[in-house]
């Protein structure tokens, strides 16, 4: 029996949804608000919510003290580069695992995922030494490599589950219809796989954009992405909450805009396989 949707239930669930939505969004809102306060105002207890003297001074200071655009460019290169390389490796890998599995395919998938079960800090010293000896410290290429490798297992897994959902029958139908391997790829497989590939890569881009462990430990200035830029406003120079907030707001803005436009793809990507 279908549940009756009463007015009261509608009101309760609407209010609850807005409440929890607001709760989750509040820290981000608070950060954006703080970025427009003066440092003094940012410390005031009790904090003022909307009625304070609005100022954009923090943004100006942040921009003059460090080069936002350099870090933003680094972020784009590192997140974008690691995503592109991950795609080039993961698409064929997931493809062959989905469509030409061997007896060991399951084991390989599990083994790949198992590398994510170890805390990254466990391999910090060896990786740091490797980077140092290879001259990769504070280079964009080094960060591209480490982020790409770090996210690769998840990308392969996600793509594998997507490709698995493409019925074999359809590929066989294409073969019966006389499609060569190349045409089968171009006309049948790719159009069916593109939504899955797109949402996987989008997720990978966001993960790489926000990755803070390796970027903080392996870069300082030249190759430093926005995560390092934010961190530079926290501890060493004392707490500059307003400037930290301004830096953070600037750092998350691009990815927030991207995420906003791609939210449908993202939701589909994250819930894929769970609900059909």
């Amino acid at each position, binding site marked *: 029996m279908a549940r009756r949707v009463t007015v009261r239930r509608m009101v309760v669930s609407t209010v609850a949804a807005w409440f929890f939505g607001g709760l989750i969004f509040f820290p981000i809102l608070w950060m954006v608000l703080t970025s427009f306060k003066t440092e003094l105002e940012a410390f005031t207890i009790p904090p003022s919510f909307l009625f304070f003297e609005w100022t954009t001074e923090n943004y100006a200071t942040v921009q003059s003290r460090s080069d936002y655009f350099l870090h933003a460019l680094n972020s784009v290169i590192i997140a974008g580069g690691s995503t592109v390389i991950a795609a080039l490796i993961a698409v064929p890998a997931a493809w062959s695992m989905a469509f030409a599995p061997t007896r060991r395919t399951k084991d390989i998938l599990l083994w790949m995922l198992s590398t994510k079960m170890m805390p990254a800090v466990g391999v910090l010293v060896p990786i740091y030494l490797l980077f140092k000896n290879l001259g990769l410290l504070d280079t964009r290429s080094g960060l591209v490599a480490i982020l790409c490798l770090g996210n690769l297992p998840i990308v392969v897994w996600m793509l594998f589950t997507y490709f698995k959902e493409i*019925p074999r*029958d*359809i590929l*066989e*139908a*294409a*073969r*019966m*219809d*006389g*499609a*060569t391997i190349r*045409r089968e790829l171009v*006309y*049948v497989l790719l*159009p*069916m796989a593109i939504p899955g590939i797109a949402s996987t890569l989008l997720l990978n881009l966001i993960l790489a954009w926000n990755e803070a462990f390796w970027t903080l430990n392996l870069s300082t200035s030249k190759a430093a992405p926005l995560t390092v830029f934010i961190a530079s406003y926290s501890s060493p120079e004392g707490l500059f909450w307003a400037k930290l907030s301004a830096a953070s707001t600037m750092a998350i803005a691009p990815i927030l805009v991207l995420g906003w436009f791609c939210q449908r793809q993202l939701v589909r990507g994250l819930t894929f396989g769970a609900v059909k």
Partner: protein
Amino acid sequence: MGQITLQGVHKSFGQLEIIKDANLDIENGSFVVFVGPSGCGKTTLLRLIAGLEDVTGGQILIDGQNVVNVPPAKRGLSMVFQSYALYPHMSVRGNIAFGLKMAGLPRPEINRKVEAAAATLNLTPYLDRKPRELSGGQRQRVAIGRAIVREPKAFLFDEPLSNLDAALRVQMRMEVTRLQKQLATTAVYVTHDQVEAMTMADRIVVLNAGRVEQYGSPLELYERPANLFVAGFIGSPKMNFVAGPPASQHGAATIGIRPEHLRIAPAAEGAGEGWPGTVSVAEHLGSDTFLYVDAGALGLLTVRGIGEIHLRGGDRVRLSPDPARMHRFDKDGMAIRQ
């Protein structure tokens, strides 16, 4: 032309032998049905013909040419899949046209052929829709359209009607048969449904555990089953088997009597003749009456009577087999011919 010949075809997956020495001659223009219980290898045999699986041994000849090393597309066959396997991102037109496009036909010719195929299958109003906007029956038609538009040497059908509801299945059954006769193209059709096999086929191949048990016309299989398996598989309700003394009376290890060939009479009259028993369940369908009779040591026997028979559970009856329609089998389960 579409003459398909299988010579000593074997197929193994690792240690597992799926097809054991299949020899068949499928004549041009005939409708041949592979039937058998699930796991008997009928779909594998079809896929071997299609080229979607490679044979382990033996030859497959299409119009006299051995095709075991020819890729599926070059065999000139087309296939209708159980899941329809339509291209979800293409319109109905795109789906039907795909094979022709791959063959590199000029666009006007493709359009002409697609429209002709769509008209044959009443799909013209749906040409610009996507598969997800169609009903199950319409999708099935698109899958068939995709197969006929290429004018293949033979159609291969892999349980194409099993996803449809009962009424639609009967209707599509007739449509497929009619279409096949109209096009006079060889068809190989896989099903586990013996009613489909009996109604559609010119000839039936009964498969069991990777072996061809019998190959013949529907009535041949019904009237002269080669062995116990075929006798039990073809015909509904199933044939009754009786072993022991009643069988040895007829010089056989087992005798088989179809439910429609058992005469039933109330126990009182003609005492001493026939097998005594008690009706355990009676199914009254109006047109037929199915009686499940507990015949003691002989086991549960099924009787099919035409029209309404006024018997109920618990009634005592006598059953007498029609000797002319009795099937006799030796101790290996093979039919004994007169």
